[in-house]
């Protein structure tokens, strides 16, 4: 696995450049027929520019809810959240983020290039520039040559990369990814993880990444947010000590395993059923 040269400088970008996401006492309670359900409670978190933050925890811990709050797909019932100093709604109106969902959610009647061009069409980007950006982002995710294919003609991994290209096409600085590789097999997943790290190094984006795979979280992140359910809350925030350059076999090093063990302990602590 080759790593882009820029990658080595990533560590220095993490601090002192202003916060991208800032949550204070953030909470969300859904009213259901069985009474209120607290999806997220009392989350304080600041994410700085250029960070790669993973959210990990069992289902129901509120990690997806937190992402949806950043994206203004849900409204908080407690606390505040700002994105680049704006409210979540203002940030959405300014198209401040790209969102990658669990499923590729490509529109089946659009070819890959027209799927990637969809946000550009909506944002009123002129045709010529649209074409150029589609070309650029598709080559960024190694899908050049598949422009005219329909989604069903591509494998699951390629569809997911197309959906990442779609989120990158309009060049938002913040990338929100909700278990994007959850449905893929491990070989494809390793491959895409490597590509994602490389892309992050190249584009200097801030990435919020939801997963429930410990190795994936440790491998990718500069910071790991461990969460637990009932109510969904943050139980531990782990700063990664791994070097910026991360070949795949870094996952066998003692340092990697130590971080993974801490994440596992954090998950266990939140999981007190006894």
């Amino acid at each position, binding site marked *: 696995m080759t790593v882009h040269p820029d990658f080595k400088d990533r560590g220095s970008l993490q601090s002192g450049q202003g916060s991208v996401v800032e949550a204070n006492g953030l909470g969300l309670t859904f009213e259901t027929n069985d009474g209120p359900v607290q999806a997220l409670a009392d989350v304080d978190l600041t994410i700085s520019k250029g960070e790669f933050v993973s959210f990990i925890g069992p289902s129901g811990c509120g990690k997806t809810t937190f992402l949806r709050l950043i994206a203004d797909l849900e409204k908080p019932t407690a606390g505040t959240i700002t994105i680049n100093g704006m409210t979540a709604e203002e940030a959405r109106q300014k198209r401040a983020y790209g969102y990658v969902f669990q499923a590729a959610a490509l529109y089946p009647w659009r070819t890959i290039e027209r799927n990637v061009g969809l946000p550009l069409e*909506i944002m009123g980007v002129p045709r010529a520039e649209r074409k150029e950006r589609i070309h650029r982002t598709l080559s960024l995710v190694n899908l050049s040559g598949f422009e005219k294919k329909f989604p069903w003609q591509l*494998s699951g991994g390629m569809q997911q990369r197309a959906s990442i290209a779609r989120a990158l096409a309009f060049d938002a600085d913040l990338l929100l990814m909700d278990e994007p590789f959850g449905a893929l097999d491990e070989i494809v997943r390793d491959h895409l993880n490597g590509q994602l790290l490389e892309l992050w190094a190249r584009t200097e984006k801030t990435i919020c990444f939801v997963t429930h795979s410990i190795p994936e979280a440790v491998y990718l992140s500069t910071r790991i947010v461990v969460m637990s359910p009932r109510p969904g809350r943050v139980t531990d925030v782990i700063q990664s000590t791994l070097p910026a350059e991360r070949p795949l076999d870094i996952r066998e090093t003692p340092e990697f395993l130590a971080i993974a063990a801490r994440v596992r302990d954090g998950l266990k602590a939140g999981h007190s059923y006894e």
Partner: protein
Amino acid sequence: MSASVAELHRPAARPSAPAQGKAGHTGPILIVLAIIVALWYAFAVYLNAPFQKSLYERDGQAWTYADLVRDTLYQERPVLPAPHQVAAEIWKTTVEVKPSSKRSLVYHGWVTLSSTLLGFAMGTALGILLAVFIVHNRAADRSVMPWVVASQTIPILAIAPMIIVVLNAVGLSGLLPKALISTYLSFFPVVVGMVKGFRSPEPLQLDLMRTYYASPSQVFWKLRWPSAVPFLFTSMKVAVAISLVGAIVGEMPTGAVAGLGARLLAGSYYGQTVQIWAALFAAAAIAAVLVMLIEFAQRIVLRHMGMTPP
């Protein structure tokens, strides 16, 4: 870095669909057709025999069963005409007379077809508009939909003469009143189908539009409308068939002078059963052609959209 080999070699999620089918269909269809024709002949003999026997009796004529079978299949006004009689009548009234003649089935078929098509077009447009309204407006969803359903519980045979008479009184006659009856029948499947179609996008596909801060009209044209296209074709197939029924029903009550409905009515007045059956087959043929045309359009449109028809 190149796309991984493992990914490229995975089979496509969907097989190329139109490969199978077609070839195996003609045989079974022909067998069923042969059975139907045989049954039809049997029934023609059975149903026309009593009248034929009474004829023999009146004339004091001796007869064999071979005579009976032959004669029952060539009556002038049979209870059930034999297939070849209907075929001969269709041939006579389509090929042997000029299409402009009032005795031509082509002429009557065209009259019915034109009001069918007008009514179908208006019904489809009305159905789509109502569906758009219902999907985008909560109050409309609750208030309009029950009326749409209720409208279809009124027996069209009862209301058709009144529509024709009332519209005649306000100076509307000819094509439009008949077309309105077709519209009345055909908008219903389109409303129901398109409401379902406009609501068919998945939550993730809608969330995606929200993350782009897309306007309602963008959500409609770039997501809801394309999602609903397969539903539109399915509803249109039902709608065009009942449009034809509506047009025929509209031609019957007021002593209309032209159209397949008028032909049916005239036939039953004068006991011309062969003429009735010929008109029925003409109507069936028109319906079949219309449905096939829509299916053909569906195939082309869906292929262009990268989808294969169900």
